[in-house]
């Protein structure tokens, strides 16, 4: 694709802290390369802001190669921007043309409070994982990975679910702010593997309980989560989670 430069108008959510009210600030950026990533474009703007003695825009980022799940921007009405199966860091400026206006907002959900600007607190996800996203394993030498036979289809489905990077785009996109796609990926990943067997029932019950405590909404299968998921986690995982919950809820001894 041919290289080009563009001038853009950015409307970015600025909020000093979780306690203060935020608002949109408008910035003009010029000579943006079509080969830049979206975050590099923000970097350029931030350098300018620092040189001008202003506060740079705070945003989450880490690996910048689409695997860590840190970046989290809601760009022009879509989590992670206009491309499918993509994270904000992997969004490139060739998605835009000269003169475009881009509105950048943080994830919006009560359970993801804004810490600063575009940074939200996704600790709720960590607490859901801590409630059941683990397995029992013997101490001592690690068992050979191939010692446990696993059907290929199941291994593939578990891997597809395990691809979830916990970025929170599903919550950001859902009209109910539901974390069910995230939770279902975590539950499916372990429910499909023999290693997940021992805690299979308590895991799903505890993780759903924690999700409810964190204040996420319920799933109504609008499938908006699947559409924006950078890792293309399927909503069929949600059905699997519900099945796991139904069986565990009805048969768990406790």
């Amino acid at each position: 694709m041919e290289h080009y430069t563009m001038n853009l108008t950015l409307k970015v959510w600025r909020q000093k802290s979780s306690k203060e009210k935020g608002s949109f600030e408008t910035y003009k950026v010029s000579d943006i390369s079509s080969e830049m990533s979206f975050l590099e474009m923000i970097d350029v703007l931030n350098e300018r802001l620092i040189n001008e003695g202003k506060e740079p825009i705070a945003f989450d980022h880490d690996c910048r190669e689409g695997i860590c799940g840190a970046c989290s921007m809601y760009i022009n009405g879509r989590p992670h921007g206009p491309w499918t199966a993509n994270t904000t860091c992997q969004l490139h400026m060739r998605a835009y043309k000269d003169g475009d206006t881009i509105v950048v907002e943080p994830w919006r959900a009560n359970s993801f409070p804004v810490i600063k600007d575009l940074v939200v607190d996704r600790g709720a996800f960590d607490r859901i994982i801590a409630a059941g996203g683990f397995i029992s394993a013997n101490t001592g030498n690690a068992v050979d990975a191939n010692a446990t036979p696993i059907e290929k289809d199941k291994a593939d489905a578990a891997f597809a679910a395990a691809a979830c990077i916990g970025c929170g785009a599903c919550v950001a996109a859902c009209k109910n702010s539901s974390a069910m796609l995230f939770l279902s990926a975590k539950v499916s990943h372990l429910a499909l593997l023999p290693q997940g067997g021992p805690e299979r029932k308590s895991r799903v019950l505890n993780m759903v309980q924690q999700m409810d405590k964190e204040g996420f909404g319920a799933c109504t299968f609008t499938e908006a989560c699947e559409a924006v998921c950078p890792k293309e986690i399927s909503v069929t995982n949600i059905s699997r989670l519900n099945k796991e919950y139904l069986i565990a809820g009805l048969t768990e001894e406790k």
Partner: protein
Amino acid sequence: MKWSEFFTSSVGKKFVMAFTGLFLISFLIVHVGINACIFADMVDPDDNGEMFNKAAHFMGASYVIRLMEIGLFAGIILHIVQGYMLEAQNRSRRKEGYAVSMGSKGSAWYKKSMGLLGTLILLFLIVHIAHFWVPSRITYETTLSEVSYNGNAMHDVFSKMVEVFQNGYVVILYILGCFSLAWHLLHGFQSSFRTVGVHNKKWLALVQSVGIGFSIIVPLIFALMPISIFFGWVTNS
């Protein structure tokens, strides 16, 4: 886990919606089947609602079915109350909204409008109950005439139906009600199966295609009833 905990978790509440929804879908099959008996008049012009009146008599005369009717009302009320409570809770999960909304990027409008569609169906249901259930179950002594087939006297619900559907506005209202039902079912049918845990590919494909067929055919047959009476394809003479 206690029953109360099971049914009040976010997943449990959806189970209630799904199971009551599936129950109401099964009711629709019975309802559309019984009422489709009016079309006998199109095959045999001397029927004049005889087949329908007999079917309606069967549905009203047996205590077993009257008891099931109580279960039906309980199911409807549970579905409505739980639906509104979930809608309110889900909406409250995002106090500060987005400046640019997602619109229909990623999910069709009707999948996100189950509350609205459900409300339209509820409004229709109130009118519908006032039109037919009240006159045939409560005030029948004054609102229904009698008809006799082979010496068996029964209520003439068919004449009531013909009377109600002479009004064009009522017919339009019923058609709109059927539209709301069709969109509600288009999402609700497959979504309720998925909520209760259907995730295998072959079952999902079956549920989705049967769901589309059901959502089109059942409301269409319902809509054809007032239309057929209004245009005189089904008559009392």
